[in-house]
């Protein structure tokens, strides 16, 4: 196939110089001049040769000799010593090498100029160098508001020292940073999460940053809270927690917690189970009885006595409202003390109120007579009081039994109906409460303690778990004592919150890191050891 090309003859007189910036314009016609263009691309062609003056011995004028490469021309030099064959000027052609160099310089110039412009104009600079959208709390609008109240610099300057500087300030900040640009040793050996100067800016708006244990190492805010990752701040990952909780050396100082990597692998069983903690509440309540007993009377409006009857979610749906007597108990436990008079019931909530109520029984019966429009009120009152006297003997005995007795003396069967429904018996305050007799005044009733949250430093939402039956987590139907803490064990959570279960099981899913104001809640105070 080589015959399809002209012969590759090498002409030493017309040596191509592709490494030079310019080539002779006549090269295209195949006859470039020997001299070629100068370095700036100007044609240097003059004539085919530069004649040389030769003077023989004895001569004074001498003779010009043609020096044309390839042989002297026929005409020879002109009398004035110039060549008789001038070369036509050409338009030198840039080589590819020069074109590439020019393109490179253009890219360098464009990059430099573009960057200088973008960095020199603050609004453009902030938008250009911002490595990602800020979280909503740190957005421009939020910072503008904070700048007014916390004396912060607006925009990038609120967090970054160089944020309110020009290009010079950014370079200065870079070379004064710690670790510095050339501080390679620090880069390799520095502790991760080491607090930085920028943390001080975080504390301007987030004062009193607390850690969950006093002996926890102080770490940089940015270690867990990665910014510039979108409007919603990226959640703290297990890797962040692993920094301490995955390190046996760091966890050696902990009193209670060992090394933990993941919930489903090495998270310990909940302490209320391992340490057999008990509910210290003095109220006597039997979940099993209330949920399974067959003789529980019907409730008004066709309601049934299930978990949801007493345990109602709060406004957020995350946690349950505390059980209240008036809302949840009185519908059955009416505190009717006179078997013959279901309309009259004791007040609840204060021993003094109960005592005062009993000491004003004649007046209470009189008011009842007025409400019921009884014709002979005094006879009505006297009859009721006589009935009580026949049952209890005296007012003192009545008060003693109401406060201290656990024996049933209220309505026994179908008496005392309200709206056609049967009511529960009233044995006396001590049936449910811890009642201590007092030498002076009314007996002392220990106030029930019902915490709104059992694990106050953990996060949980009943609303998220609404599709799961209560009994799947809370073994209430086997609990007969108030002291039973019927929270689920770890294994119950693990059914879903594990790689097998497919539901997220990160640390931050349940745990908060920072202490709430006032320090971490000591969960132990809510429970007692068995």
């Amino acid at each position, binding site marked *: 196939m080589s015959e*399809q090309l002209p012969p590759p003859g090498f002409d030493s007189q017309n040596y191509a110089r592709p490494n030079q910036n310019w080539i002779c314009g006549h090269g295209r016609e195949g006859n470039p001049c020997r001299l070629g263009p100068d370095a700036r691309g100007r044609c240097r062609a003059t004539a085919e040769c530069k004649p040389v003056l030769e003077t023989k011995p004895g001569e004074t004028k001498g003779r010009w000799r043609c020096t044309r490469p390839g042989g002297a021309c026929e005409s020879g030099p002109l009398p004035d010593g110039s060549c008789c064959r001038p070369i036509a000027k050409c338009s030198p052609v840039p080589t590819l090498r020069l074109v590439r160099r020019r393109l490179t310089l253009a890219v360098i110039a464009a990059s430099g100029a573009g960057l200088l412009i973008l960095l020199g104009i603050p609004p453009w600079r902030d938008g250009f160098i911002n490595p990602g959208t800020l979280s909503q709390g740190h957005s421009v609008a939020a910072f503008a508001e904070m700048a007014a109240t916390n004396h912060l610099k607006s925009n990038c300057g609120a967090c*970054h020292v160089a944020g309110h500087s020009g290009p010079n300030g950014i370079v200065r900040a870079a070379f004064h940073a710690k670790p510095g640009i050339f501080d390679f040793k620090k880069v390799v050996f520095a502790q991760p999460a080491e607090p930085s100067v920028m943390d001080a800016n975080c504390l301007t708006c987030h004062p009193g940053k607390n850690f969950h244990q006093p002996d926890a190492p102080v770490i940089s805010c940015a270690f867990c809270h990665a910014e510039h990752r979108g409007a919603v701040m990226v959640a703290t990952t297990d890797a962040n927690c692993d920094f301490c909780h995955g390190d046996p050396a760091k966890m050696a100082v902990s009193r209670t917690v060992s090394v933990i990597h993941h919930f489903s692998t090495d998270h310990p069983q909940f302490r209320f189970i391992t340490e057999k903690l008990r509910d210290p509440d003095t109220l006597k309540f039997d979940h099993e009885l209330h949920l399974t007993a067959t003789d529980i009377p019907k409730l008004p409006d066709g309601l049934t006595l299930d978990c949801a009857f007493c345990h109602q979610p709060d406004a957020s749906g995350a946690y349950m409202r505390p059980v209240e007597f008036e809302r949840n108990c009185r519908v059955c436990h009416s505190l009717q003390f006179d078997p013959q008079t279901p309309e009259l019931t004791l007040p609840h909530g204060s021993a003094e109120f109960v005592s005062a109520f009993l000491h004003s029984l004649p007046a209470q019966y009189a008011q009842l007579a007025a409400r019921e429009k009884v014709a002979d009120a005094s006879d009505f009152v006297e009859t009721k009081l006589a009935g009580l006297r026949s049952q209890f003997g005296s007012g003192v005995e009545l008060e003693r039994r109401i406060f201290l007795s656990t024996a049933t003396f209220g309505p026994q069967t179908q008496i005392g109906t309200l709206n056609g429904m049967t009511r529960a018996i009233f044995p006396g305050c001590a049936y449910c409460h811890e009642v201590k007799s007092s030498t002076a005044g009314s007996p002392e009733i220990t106030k029930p303690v019902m915490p709104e949250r059992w694990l106050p430093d953990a996060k949980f939402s009943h609303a998220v778990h609404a599709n799961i039956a209560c009994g799947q987590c809370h073994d209430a139907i086997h609990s007969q004592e108030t002291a039973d803490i019927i929270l689920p064990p770890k294994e119950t959570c693990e059914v879903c919150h594990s790689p097998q279960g497919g539901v997220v099981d990160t640390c931050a899913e349940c745990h908060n890191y920072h202490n709430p104001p006032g320090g971490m809640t000591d969960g132990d105070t809510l429970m007692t050891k068995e």
Partner: protein
Amino acid sequence: MKRFRRQFFPGLFALLIAAAATLVLHAHFRRTLPNEALLTGWILLAATLALAFYNARKRLPFLPLGNSETWLQVHIYLGFFTVLLFLIHLNFRLPHGWFEITLAWLFALVSGSGGVGLILSRVLPRRLATRGGEVIYEKIPALSHALKSEAENVAVGAEAKSPAIAEFYARRLARFFSTPQNTWLHLVESRHPLNALISGLDDLRRTGSDAERAMLEKLAALVRQKDGLDYHRSLQLTLKLWLFVHIPLTYGLLIFTALHIILVFGFSGGAR
């Protein structure tokens, strides 16, 4: 080239081993590495500078820095390895923000053009060798000019006395001999334009006299030579043009990288 082929499999094996080892080390130490992004960034910068130094090495032939072929080998394998370092530095995530996206694009274009260049430098010389002949790129214009002169002389010169050939030359061949032709078609190995011209000349030959036939044969040979020159020009130009992307953007990448380092430290937590 022979050395390149001989070293291809060992080089590829070494690259794969290095890549696997890097990935394993990164996965193992990434959680415990202090300032992981800084560390991977410095390593990436060192690799990038080593790659960029290949161009400087070519400008310093007098220094005893090893032969250019070895440097090219290192440049190629280190180039692929640097792409992996780049992905590790990015944490295998897409970059955010105008500056980082621009920087990433520059890296991608430099790497991509390097990859394209590698493919071109392996494929096109083979195709040129298969086509046959040798011609220096810089001499192609002069050779084309000579062919054009010769063709003009044959077709419309003083001794040419064939109106049909002169008409055919004016209509079909004048432009063909005047400027480089069919650059893109040569890249895809299309011979359709050449065949069309030869076919046109053959048509004339069937009805031509003996003298005309001799002229047409000469013209056909010149057409083939010009087509060969255009083929060489097309492929050799392509071999040179990818560097018009690779080298200028490398400088742009280095400028943006320098600014990236300034910004990282200037806006770091420890900036003062």
